[in-house]
């Protein structure tokens, strides 16, 4: 991540931009980005450092409970418009080829993929950005209609990995190589290869470099794809509703406060238990407990900043664990999760 010496973004620019998006002040935020462009800051730096850098801070501010959901969403919306304004101001002839960009079905974090779309466009690609949460069938239909040279697939949350696997397999079956990106593919993209992606990029700029210098990947004949998801995974996914219902039913007995929950609290608790089940399923799918322990640690931190005792999370984990006694891999992962938040 190199910044040219004379046209550097200053910390003051970044702070001001954060204030503006936090205010939902699209006009001023766009104005700031435009004046930086006019001053000669490359569009790539505005996209990666200003918009991307700020987005990371927005995520931290949400996690530490300094910003609410509405503020976070509004800020993201402003950044999307700033990105569109930057794109409208920078015209690059498309000379490289065509690429389709999509977020995995169920993946709603569209901004990182949109940023990559603009970076690729600036690098001379003709880009079809299909947006957040793209159903697999849509993606494949699009591939048949446009015949791109690559699919870039974004997945920020590991619970979408099984869907990502299906999408990658389908893209490759349609003869289009896939480059994967996003935190969801794990540290160093370790799940990307497992799921059959042809390449993985840690950052948008890395993806741009790879696609410009080393593409297409060599055609691999007879790659039927890896079969993932064992019996435990299948069981967990099938019995998700019962798991949650049983846990909700037993909750008041172990957590008396739950007697007085209103519907919103009941919904929120059921949703949290759903996340536990989904992250556990994802960890089982790729066979890596780190997905689950990472989720448990992150949740504990989010709860702590919101004044919720970590004990509540332990109760939830135990309620799910009690129902999975016959599933050794799942038990081991839950136990590792519980151990990670022991203090």
């Amino acid at each position, binding site marked *: 991540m190199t910044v040219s010496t004379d046209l550097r973004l200053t910390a003051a620019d970044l702070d001001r931009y954060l204030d503006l998006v936090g205010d*939902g002040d*699209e*006009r001023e935020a*766009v*104005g700031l980005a435009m004046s930086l462009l006019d001053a000669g800051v490359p569009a790539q730096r505005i996209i990666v450092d200003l918009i991307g850098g700020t987005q990371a801070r927005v995520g931290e501010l949400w996690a530490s409970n300094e910003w609410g*959901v*509405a503020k976070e*969403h*509004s800020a*993201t*919306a402003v950044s999307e*418009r*700033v990105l*569109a*304004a930057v794109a*409208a101001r920078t*015209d690059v*002839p*498309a000379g490289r080829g065509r690429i389709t960009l*999509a977020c995995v*079905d*169920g993946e*709603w974090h*569209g901004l990182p993929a949109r940023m990559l779309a603009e970076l690729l466009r600036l690098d001379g690609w*003709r880009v*079809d*950005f*299909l*947006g957040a*949460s*793209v*159903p*697999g*069938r*849509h*993606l494949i*239909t*699009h*591939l*048949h*209609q*446009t*015949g791109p040279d690559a699919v870039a697939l974004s997945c920020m949350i590991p619970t979408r990995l099984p*869907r990502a696997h299906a999408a990658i397999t389908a893209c490759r*079956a*349609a*003869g289009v190589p896939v480059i994967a990106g996003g935190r969801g593919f794990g540290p160093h993209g370790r799940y990307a290869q497992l799921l059959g992606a042809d390449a993985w990029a840690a950052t948008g700029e890395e993806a741009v470099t790879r696609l410009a210098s080393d593409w297409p990947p060599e*055609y691999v*004949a007879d790659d039927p794809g890896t079969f993932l998801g064992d019996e435990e995974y299948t069981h967990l996914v099938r019995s*998700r*509703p019962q798991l*949650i219902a049983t846990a*909700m039913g037993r909750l008041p007995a172990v957590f008396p406060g739950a007697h007085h929950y209103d*519907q*919103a609290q009941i*919904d929120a608790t*059921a*949703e949290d*238990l*759903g996340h536990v089940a989904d992250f556990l399923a994802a960890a089982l799918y790729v066979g890596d407990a780190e997905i689950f322990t990472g989720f448990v640690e992150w949740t504990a931190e989010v709860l702590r900043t919101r004044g919720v005792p970590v004990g509540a999370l332990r109760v939830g984990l135990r309620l799910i664990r009690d129902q999975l006694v016959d599933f050794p891999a799942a038990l081991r992962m839950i136990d590792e999760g519980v151990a990670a938040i022991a203090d």
Partner: protein
Amino acid sequence: MTALTPAGAGEPLTRTIPVAPAPALLRAAMEAATEAMVICAADGDIVVLANAEAQRLLPALRPGAPVAGPLTGDASFRAEHEGRRLYGVRRPLDDDHYAWFVGDHTEAEERAASLELERSRTAFLAEAGRRLSASLHVRRCTRTTAELAVAHLADAAIVVLPVNGGQCSWIRLSPGHAPEEGTLAERKLAEVPGLVEALDGFPPIPSQWLDPALAPGWLFPADLGPVGALLVIPLPGNAEPAGALILARGGNQAAFTAEDEMLARIFAARAGAALSAAVLYQEQVATTTVLQADLLPPELPQPDGFELGASYQAARDSLRIGGDFYDVLGPPTGGSDTVIALGDVCGTGPEAAVLTGKVRQTLRALRLVGVAPEDMLRVLNQALLQSGRRQRFVTLVIGSVQRVEHGRVRLRLASGGHPPPLVLRADGTVDEVPTKGTLIGVLPQTVVTPATVELAPGELCLLYSDGLTEARGGPSGDEQFGEERLRRQLAGCHGMPAAVAVERLRQLVSDWVHGGPRDDIAMLAVRAHTRPPLSLRGGGARNASPYLVAARRGDRRSSRARS
């Protein structure tokens, strides 16, 4: 062995016959052997004896002369000798003599080679079938055809597509070059021997009748060197050829054998079938795109005084149209009110979409006459009843939106059997707009109670279809999202711009459904501005479902942006 010996047989099963045969008999046996035998004296490597087979395979051998030809080395040899593939083993006989035993493996090796060739052809055709059937995109199919051809059939390959508007598209792959693409004027086709015939669908002219020297210089890059053999094959398609394949082998000695030509024709048949399927698919897509263009949700205008946000998701993932719809009709010349409508035709899929198209068209016409929302519903009811089609009803909400003083926005809303819109107030409470009415398209008379609401700056009014509240999912997997939950989640959107609130609701309901089936869902939100309107128009408009837009407007938008 002992156990197998029959009891009482008395004698072992094998015996050595202790009789020395006559030398003449030994010699006759040697002569009769199918393997060549050459007995040599170790001293001076002189041939002592060569049997008949040895004389046949190695005619230069003379008894009494030194051993020659491929018979060298201490252990064995494998060599080609006088057009035959020989394999020999040397064995010591006694202190002074040794022998070569030589076999003729010519036929066996030819059989093995032809089997290997057959195998590689089968593997090639299997790979071709797999890769060609993967894509329904014409350019990709063309490219794959050229890639397979240079990998297995020739040094360089060109795929030429049929004439279209006086031009032919082509893709060329040649050694040391990236894939090249271009178009060729129809009149230049005749310069390539056999190409016009191939594109007319005639069977290919055998390679040896095509003089590569006649190929024009532009056909292949100069660094390919002299083209030794040229093959031009039609790619058979549906009734007319899908294109032609030009194959070239470099070097003066190059040739295409009859087997090569046959393999190329089999391959061409597969490539042609894949290409014509892709052509057919692209034609269908083009037609569908035109037909559904008017049925897709409209791009939202950016009216003065208030902001709009909308989302539409069709029930079937691969379809982008369905039974829900929304529309926004800007003020007519001289007018000041914007008309919004959101509705739900019974059913889903293309049949329902066609009716939504009619409803939207009727509304556009009514808009021009400037009638109130409740009157639009009445006329629409009459129009649907008189259309005489099978009973299909529609529920919808029509609203007329107008900016009033102090940044407030006034909506007059009329519902025809549709869930009433919700209003998110500045204090975070959610109200229901008290409008109701009968279904449209069923009863001869409609009864509509319109309602008027005013939005203070930052307040939002949400129109939605019941696909939202009836979405099944949640922890149990079978619970409806429900009106109560919608109200609560809408309250949670307090402070969000209209487009962000709609996107958030879409995300929440999608998470609720958790990948399960769902109905069409449409949402349209109107929000009074909290601050002066934004400078950025259109370009930054956040469409709730961008992937819907990409394929539809991608080309148009990018051509506009890039021109």
